[in-house]
């Protein structure tokens, strides 16, 4: 299978540790997954709201570039990008009117799309394609004793037509990945509850409300860290914790939010600095050190 990597706009910015740890882990696993050249924004949910043909053209350009590069699968670490790209892919396959309109727009960019690309989320590629056995073989520093709450958010698991075989409300793939790294994946109630997503700027009140509930539950079940698989989820859960002085009980306690690729790299014995562990709002180091992990 030939992959192309679609980083999305956050990966070299706010999600820098996700990008850094992905590259380190991919190298350790010997994955051949070059970045898609000249990619553009997927359009996110923003363009879906404003103009559907624009949304499908933006994602469609990335699909067309992938096809032209000879790759069969476009892999993204961002759940928002995953949903936008796959939604466009399905509209281009099944909706002849949208396909015609998008084709006209794509031709302005000198491209056409034949529909051959499959869109994948990085987590799914790790668990299914690389495989848990191959990942387990690379573990040199098992995350023994580390209690993790795996947070999937919304768009990795919903809607069903896009997310395919992931359970819409109780997915387990990340939990299984954490288990082979030696960590204890906890059962909790908010693994697919929304973080507020793109409302972070426009309605910070709403985001704080939603993330407070998620983080309170993670602490209640005894999690040392919350594990994320999306730049937007990670940022919303991490950045607004200082503004959580509501409802009293948990107000002084913070909890670090890390990417699943960072924990993979840590278990593989890779340099914590190269994985980007120092680039968070809530420093994950104390929680990890308390379990004798080298960081």
């Amino acid at each position, binding site marked *: 299978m030939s992959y192309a990597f679609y980083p999305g*706009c*956050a990966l*070299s*910015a*706010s*999600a*820098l540790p996700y990008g850094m740890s992905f590259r380190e882990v991919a190298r350790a696993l010997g994955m051949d997954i070059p970045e898609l050249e*000249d*990619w*553009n*924004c997927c*359009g*996110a*949910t*923003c*363009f*879906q*709201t*404003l*103009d559907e*043909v*624009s949304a499908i*053209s*933006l994602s469609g*350009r990335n699909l067309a570039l992938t096809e032209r590069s000879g790759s069969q699968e476009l892999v993204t670490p961002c759940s928002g990008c995953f949903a936008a790209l796959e939604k466009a892919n399905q509209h281009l396959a099944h909706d002849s009117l949208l396909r015609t*309109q*998008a084709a*006209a*727009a*794509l*031709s*302005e*960019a*000198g491209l056409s799309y034949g529909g051959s690309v499959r869109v994948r989320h990085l987590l799914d590629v790790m668990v299914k394609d690389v495989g848990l056995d191959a990942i387990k073989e690379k573990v040199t520093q098992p995350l023994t004793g580390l209690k993790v709450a795996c947070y999937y958010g*919304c*768009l990795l698991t*919903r*809607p*069903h037509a896009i997310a395919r075989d992931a359970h*819409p*409300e109780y997915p387990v793939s990340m939990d299984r990945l954490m288990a082979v790294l030696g960590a204890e994946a906890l059962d909790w109630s908010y693994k*697919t*509850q*929304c973080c*507020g*997503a*793109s*409302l972070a*700027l*426009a*309605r910070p009140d*709403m985001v704080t*409300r*939603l993330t407070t*509930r998620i983080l309170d539950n993670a602490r209640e079940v005894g999690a040392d860290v919350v594990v994320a698989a999306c730049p937007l989820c990670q940022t919303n859960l991490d*950045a607004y914790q200082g503004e959580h002085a509501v409802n009293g009980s948990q107000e002084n306690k913070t909890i670090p939010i890390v990417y699943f690729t960072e924990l993979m790299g840590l278990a593989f014995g890779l340099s914590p600095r190269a994985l980007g562990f*120092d*680039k968070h*709002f809530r420093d994950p180091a104390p929680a990890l050190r308390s379990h004798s992990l080298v960081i």
Partner: protein
Amino acid sequence: MEGRYGAQVALCYQCKRCTAGCPVADAMDIRPHQVVRLLQLGNTERVLESSAIWTCVGCYLCAARCPQGVPVTDLMYSLKGIAMKRGMMPKQATVPAFLRAFSGTVERYGRLHELPMLAGFYLSTDLREALKHRAMGLQLFRQGRLHILGERHRGGKAVRAMLRKARSRKGSP
């Protein structure tokens, strides 16, 4: 609206599972099941005037739980778009301002650069809000996670041409 999702909207029998699962229903003036009911009754105006469509976080829990397959979340996105095209803005117009700042930045650069997007958003809403978040911005900048100048994207021109064409079709704004 009636054309695109009309057949699916007609299937709703008001079981309210969408509203029961919605993480922000309690902050809405009308609840998701009421949005669908009003659409069934042809009262699109009332829905377009609501704060509900601007409160929706787009998490697809309603759609995932709907026994009739009504695409409630996609409806909410469409309704926001229709309201904006008709100039029907909510009292606190921060969501439309965000959508304009985001799309404007992508249209200009081909990718989302955070600083121009943030500038566009706060200049069109309330600059004092930006000041509240300055510590966060400074930390991002110190950690190399907020760039003053984004990377140049050579496909920017092609993206602009493509988006112009996408919008130029008949019946679009």
